[in-house]
């Protein structure tokens, strides 16, 4: 049965998280935007203590698909929906702070999705410990963004160790994982450049591994509380067992690991959409309250030809935000039900990224000079929201994936 009512469990969590976002995150949002590269440690320690276990290994991590049990009834799961709803609330509080919350992040998600039981045990336990801890993922290189097949970082097996060499950029929470806590980073490297995508494997690199160095901490337009770093690997040696999935190349039957890591995007893309929606809702809530205070009424039922520009804009923002949320809920609902959702995940992210970028820009515009002032949060949300249309695959990459699926074209037929 089609139903849009959140379960009592999710509703209760949503309310609790919203209160937390409102009382603990929003009040310090501006401060940690201005104090770039500093962390609200008090908050993070509290988060780790109180919510560490509830978050299930960190925000933005989502959860991998579970195999459908053979025979028997499908057990209704709503883990991913729970995460999406929670993420929206926290990001409503503040995107920069939320993004730098302790937890496994994308690196943790990759281990969760494709690690062996031993790997999961070894690498994930730390996220539910006493101290805040972070995981990170290093994919992007100066010359390889969405084009992951072009990754030049190499991994060569030397006895019982892999030796990594190369340079990574745009590693979210890289400093948090490697310098500020005892975390790790999942690094994508090629074991055989001639094999193209099939040669690319994810490797877990622990904090403090010799040969790995943070070479740069980026200054960014928005999400300033969250650190973004460059990493260099110079003869960085890691244990042989730190590879995620099979080390075999070309053997089609053994690409499970790679595919599973790619499949984490099916879980994380809707979460990025939920992040965007949280920021968009913050802006929309703000502007609607501001208008209400001024006694401006939005006349919902009237004809489009009678609407003021302001009314039309607000209604469009509201409908766009809701549409993005419903597309996101659909994508995570499919994931929770063990259905293939890569198309829907990309649709949700494409819509949310573009819609919220526009919503926050419009919100600034509608508030006139007030919107442009740093006294007001709108300008910050406009800066923060833009990243959602970029990371985890730009809006254009999402359209490309959507179009390929629609047309049933492979990457060679639709470049």
């Amino acid at each position, binding site marked *: 049965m089609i*139903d849009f009512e959140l379960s009592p469990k999710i509703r209760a969590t949503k309310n609790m998280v919203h209160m937390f976002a409102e009382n603990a995150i929003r009040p310090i949002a501006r401060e940690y935007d201005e104090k770039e590269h500093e962390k609200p440690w008090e908050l993070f320690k509290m988060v780790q203590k109180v919510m560490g276990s509830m978050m299930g290994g960190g925000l933005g991590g989502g959860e991998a698909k579970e195999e459908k049990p053979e025979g028997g009834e499908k057990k209704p799961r709503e883990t991913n929906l729970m995460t999406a709803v929670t993420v929206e609330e926290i990001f409503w509080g503040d995107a920069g702070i939320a993004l730098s919350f302790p937890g496994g992040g994308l690196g943790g998600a990759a281990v969760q999705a494709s690690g062996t039981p031993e790997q999961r045990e070894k690498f994930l336990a730390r996220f539910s410990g006493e101290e805040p801890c972070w995981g990170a993922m290093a994919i992007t290189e100066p010359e390889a963004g969405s084009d992951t097949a072009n990754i030049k970082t190499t991994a060569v097996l030397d006895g019982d160790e892999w030796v990594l060499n190369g340079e990574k950029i745009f590693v979210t929470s890289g400093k948090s994982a490697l310098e500020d806590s005892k975390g790790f980073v999942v690094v994508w490297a090629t074991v055989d450049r001639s094999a193209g995508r099939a040669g690319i494997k994810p490797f877990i690199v622990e904090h403090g591994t010799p040969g790995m160095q943070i070479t740069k901490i980026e200054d960014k337009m928005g999400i300033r509380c969250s650190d973004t770093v460059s990493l260099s690997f110079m003869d960085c040696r890691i244990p042989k067992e730190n590879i995620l999935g099979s080390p075999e190349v070309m053997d089609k039957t053994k690409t499970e690991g790679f595919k599973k890591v790619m499949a984490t995007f099916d879980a994380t893309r809707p979460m990025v959409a939920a992040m965007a929606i949280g920021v968009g809702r913050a802006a929309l809530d703000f502007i609607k309250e501001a208008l209400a205070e001024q006694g401006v009424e939005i006349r919902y*039922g*009237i004809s489009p*030809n009678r609407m003021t520009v302001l009314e039309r804009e607000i209604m469009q923002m509201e409908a766009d935000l*809701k549409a993005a949320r419903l*597309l996101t809920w*659909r994508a995570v609902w499919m994931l929770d039900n063990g259905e293939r959702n890569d198309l829907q995940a990309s*649709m949700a992210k494409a819509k949310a990224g573009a819609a919220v970028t526009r919503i926050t820009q419009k919100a600034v515009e509608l508030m006139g000079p007030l919107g442009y002032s740093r006294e007001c949060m709108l300008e910050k949300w406009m800066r923060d929201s833009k990243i959602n249309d970029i990371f985890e695959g730009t809006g254009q990459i999402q359209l490309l994936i959507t179009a390929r699926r629609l047309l049933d*074209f492979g990457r060679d037929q639709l470049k």
Partner: protein
Amino acid sequence: MVSFELSDEQRMVQETVASFARDQMEPLMRESEESGAVPDEVIAKGWELGLLGGCIPEEYEGFGEGLSALTSVIALEELGSGDLAMALHLMSPTVLAYAVMDQGTEEQKKSYLPRFCGEEFTPAACALVEPRYDFCPSALTTTAEREYDEYVLNGRKCLVALARESDLMMAFAATQPGMGFAGVDAFIIPRDTKGVEIGEREKNMGVNALATYPVTFKDCRVPVSAKLGGEEGCDYLRLLSRCRLGLAALAVGMGKRAVQHSRDYARDRVAFGEPIGSRQAIAFMLAEMAIEVDATRLLTWEAAWRCDKGIDFCKEAALAKNYAADMAMMVGDRSVQIMGGHGYIRENPVELWFRNARGLAAFEGMVMV
């Protein structure tokens, strides 16, 4: 608990109506548009689906268990994928029938509902839209003034589908002008009532298979009992919102079909040695079209779900309808653009979708869920 899964019954309705749209409506779409008439066989076979009677309870001679807005929008989406004009023709009785079912007095239900449960298609008209550039459903200029035990209607209407073909018409008029939505009531008026003037058939940009007329009320007197809901009147905004959900669902259907058509064309049509769908300029248009169709469907579902749950849904319905009208225009436009010159030729369906789409912004009433 959140779910996007159709019930078994909804899936059955969806499949039945989808195959009717594909096999019976679409093949005759062009012919009926050009000839300006919905073919009798489509009407007869469409009526056999029992979409209307299936919602009317047994006590009023129907065979249904009541009205579900969600199931209705699912059915209407499929009808919309067949043809907009045919769908509006076939579903024209819904406004009167569902309004009576939803808000009529017991007496009104008894006297009006059974006629829609027969074996023959029974049209009914809805007079809501008015021929003014600044028309707004919250500020109707057609008035109904109380005089003793009668109401006197005055004003002009347009886009009244099947006005001449229907025995009954549901007319919306302001009983308290200036009171917005709260000041409007609905009246059930037999076609032959003195003071009802049905004009020449209208000529519109699209949906030409649907016969629409201007209707003028000149001191048209109806008994108080003709007022929907009796003395207390009706919740007009609720009725209007149910209509908006219907129009939004039809737009989703049309949009869905246009995306499929454009997708197939983009795969088949070769230019510069490869299918045009291999170019991002085309592929990205398609992706955006598909996303917006899905977005509109979900907005419509959510509003319909609220309606069924008894939660206020009027704002959501308005947002969904406006979103749907914008989506339909964007999708219609792009489906023409993707076909290039071929899209402009009347042999192809896309130019009709493009013309039909524009109507959705102007339409109000006409179909109800």
